[in-house]
């Protein structure tokens, strides 16, 4: 995608998020029990789903890279990891803000909270591998392996509320527990958030592509300057 198109997409994503905010704050009714703090739910759940999606991109990008050594797949995986980490952070922070008035504490060692925190740590480790491994094939391969193992935690997070007895609320959307107006606000927020995530991945992909191209141009210059080809490790 060209930079111009990415700019348009970014503006569109921000506009959509504002529309979603309108639905969250003006259209959706206030929760009878929880009060206005319940409105956190819309973005909290949407960010979690966006994060799952991003980590799925990391997984698929990793598998395709190991299989075909395709640089595009690796760049997508890189982009997915960064964006997924951002959305996991949003999910965790918004959840904590919600938990303080509702549960009386920011944090509890509940299965879903803990597994989400572990998810965050795993993908922070993924980015750490990228940074510490030798750039190029080694970093891409090692990161792909971490991404494949790390994704095991995603279903654990998702099903934690049904596998264990947890304090975290169970699924409300698929269980038909929401009034129609809340459902509309939720689906609009989710669609906007997923679009935002996709645009963020696209922008990040562009950055990774430019970084790779710049690196390819810099390396030969260094080789000339030092008069030697850098030996591995």
């Amino acid at each position, binding site marked *: 995608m060209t930079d111009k198109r990415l700019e348009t997409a970014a503006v569109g994503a921000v506009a959509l998020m504002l529309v979603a905010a309108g639905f969250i704050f003006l259209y959706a009714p206030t929760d009878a029990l929880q009060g206005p703090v319940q409105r956190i739910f819309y973005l909290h759940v949407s960010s979690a789903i966006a994060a799952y999606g991003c980590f799925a991109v990391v997984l698929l990008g990793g598998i395709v890279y*190991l299989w075909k050594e395709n640089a595009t797949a690796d760049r997508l995986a890189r982009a997915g990891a960064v964006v997924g980490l951002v959305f996991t952070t949003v999910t965790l922070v918004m959840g904590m803000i919600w938990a303080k008035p509702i549960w009386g504490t920011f944090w509890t060692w509940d299965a879903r909270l803990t597994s989400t925190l572990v998810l965050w740590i795993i993908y922070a480790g993924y980015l*750490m591998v990228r940074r510490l491994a030798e750039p190029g094939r080694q970093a891409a391969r*090692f990161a792909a392996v971490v991404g494949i193992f*790390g994704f*095991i935690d995603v279903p654990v997070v998702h099903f934690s509320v049904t596998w264990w007895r947890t304090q975290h609320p169970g699924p409300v959307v698929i269980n038909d527990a929401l009034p129609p107006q809340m459902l509309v606000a939720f689906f609009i927020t989710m669609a906007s958030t997923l679009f935002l995530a996709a645009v963020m991945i696209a922008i990040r992909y562009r950055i990774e592509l430019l970084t790779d191209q710049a690196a390819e141009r810099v390396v030969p210059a260094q080789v000339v300057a030092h008069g030697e080809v850098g030996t591995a490790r």
Partner: protein
Amino acid sequence: MLVVSLAPAADAAKYAADLGRGTLMRFATIALAVARKDLMSEWRTRELVPALAQFVVLALVIANFGFQFDSRNAPAIAPGVLWMALVFAGLVAFGRAFAAEREQSSLDAMLLTPASPAAIFTGKALAAGLLLVVCEAVLLPALALFFNVPLSFAVVSAVLLATVGMAVLGCLFAAMVARVRARELLLPLLTLPLWIPFIVVGGQAVQAAMGGGGGGASQATGLLIDLDILFVVLTSLTARFVLDD
């Protein structure tokens, strides 16, 4: 030293190839040769196991100061101490598994032999896992002795089953970090979060067995076996990308 560590793997590869036996037999021969080489090297130097044994006993001493043990809270705290000590001992053991290879660049030489990277990796994981089992043979009796908790079959089987998965995963990431900068930093960062399933399930089993609440020891055993299979399969699929980079 280089010759000592290389010869068995190379010989085994040639031996197996000469005989023209099945792939599986060749795989097992190479894996066992690599494991034997690692264990022999440990037997000759006797570096890691005594250090690990001291380490786990020290961990128990520190836990004693951290938790204010008495006879009532011991069954609740001892399982946690067990897993803490085990996890950190494991990190040290698996970190060392590739340290000698790295220092002498013998891993690259091993990879140049016809031996498959997966077989070499299996051998390394087998040896490192066995060394951790030796360390558990010190940790578990010490825990039972110092904290006065029962040492049942359920505890031992949970720890051993967890060791299998922890060893394959730990060795995979140890092989990875052996090739990158800041490896001491990266190994715990990558390994600990992925070991958590073993600690969750193994922890439940040990708590149930030590009488500190929690139920379903047999269910936990089944889950541990499932996790072992999952991680062994995933590791066997990805190991060659890590070793042969």
